[in-house]
């Protein structure tokens, strides 16, 4: 029959007569009601009787019993978990890794949504031959435009001359430059 493990020391002290009056009454009342602890008490008592029958232990005269026990207790070390064991215990805790996993997933989603993840293309210039460009020429975004959200040219068409698409180095501002034909230039 299983006994109350939390009361093992107190039952042992009860057997040795080392409890205070209040604790003694408490344990005695518990033993009256707990069959498991009653059996445990009988086992302890039996072991103690065997020891008393076969072992005679008397301290030599002049030995300080209290000092002796203090020395014994000071040499008892309770093993502490290592740093890695404590870290592992904390990392494995769901309260830590689940939010971390969720946050990492959110950051990964932001990365793939952001234009930065798109493949960069070199700066391009679109040259449109006159006289008429029926279909507008689409312009690929430049690396600067993709790295930082900038205004950009989506398409361009010109009936009055060639067109160049440029970008300022400092701010990345797009520039459309129309190079008029000689006929157009003569009109000014």
């Amino acid at each position, binding site marked *: 029959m299983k006994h109350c493990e939390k009361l093992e020391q107190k039952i042992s002290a009860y057997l040795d007569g080392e409890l205070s009056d209040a604790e003694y009454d408490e344990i005695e009342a518990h033993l009256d009601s707990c069959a498991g602890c009653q059996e445990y008490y009988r086992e302890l008592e039996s072991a103690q009787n065997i020891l008393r029958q076969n072992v005679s232990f008397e301290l030599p005269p002049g030995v300080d019993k209290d000092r002796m026990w203090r020395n014994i207790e000071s040499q008892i070390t309770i093993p502490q978990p290592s740093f890695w064991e404590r870290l592992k215990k904390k990392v494995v805790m769901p*309260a830590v890794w689940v*939010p971390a996993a*969720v946050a990492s997933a959110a950051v990964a989603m932001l990365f793939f949504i952001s234009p930065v993840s798109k493949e960069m293309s070199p700066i391009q210039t679109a040259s449109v031959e006159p006289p008429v460009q029926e279909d507008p020429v689409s312009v690929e975004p430049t690396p600067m435009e993709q790295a930082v959200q*900038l205004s950009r040219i989506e*398409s361009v*068409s010109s009936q009055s001359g060639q067109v160049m698409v440029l970008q*300022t*180095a400092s701010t990345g501002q797009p520039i*459309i430059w*129309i190079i008029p034909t000689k006929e157009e230039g003569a009109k000014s």
Partner: protein
Amino acid sequence: MKNLTLYKVYLLGITLLLTSLTMPALAAENLQVGIDVIKADRVGTVDPQLNDLLDELSPILNFAGFTLVKKSMTTLSATQTDEVRLSEERTLKLEFQGFDENQARLQVMILEKGKETFRTVVLLVDNGSVLIGGPPHEGGVLLLRISGEFK
């Protein structure tokens, strides 16, 4: 039970974070378009209002003078158009085609004597701008700075 509550809190936080990224475009309905009509030439002076333009364009274009000819502003809702007179024969026509994620799609056309000579579609970020230049204008070159602000 406690862990389930934590999961819900984190999921809600992430959802709000992702939603906030699209808030600027979702909240804006109109595009306020600013048009600076500028004459650029090689001998003139720089209008103080255009000093930033000189700094930006000098590495690319060889112009010494920038004169602000006209400055106008118009607010467009989706599919709305507007026109700005650039000169006697030249007109700028704008058509706001709506928001595309965090950018505003704006079609820009230049018409000369009522006939289309140039067309482009630009994607403007909030408070972003593009430059269109090159056509001859009163002894210099026409330069248009078109900016957009989400409203």
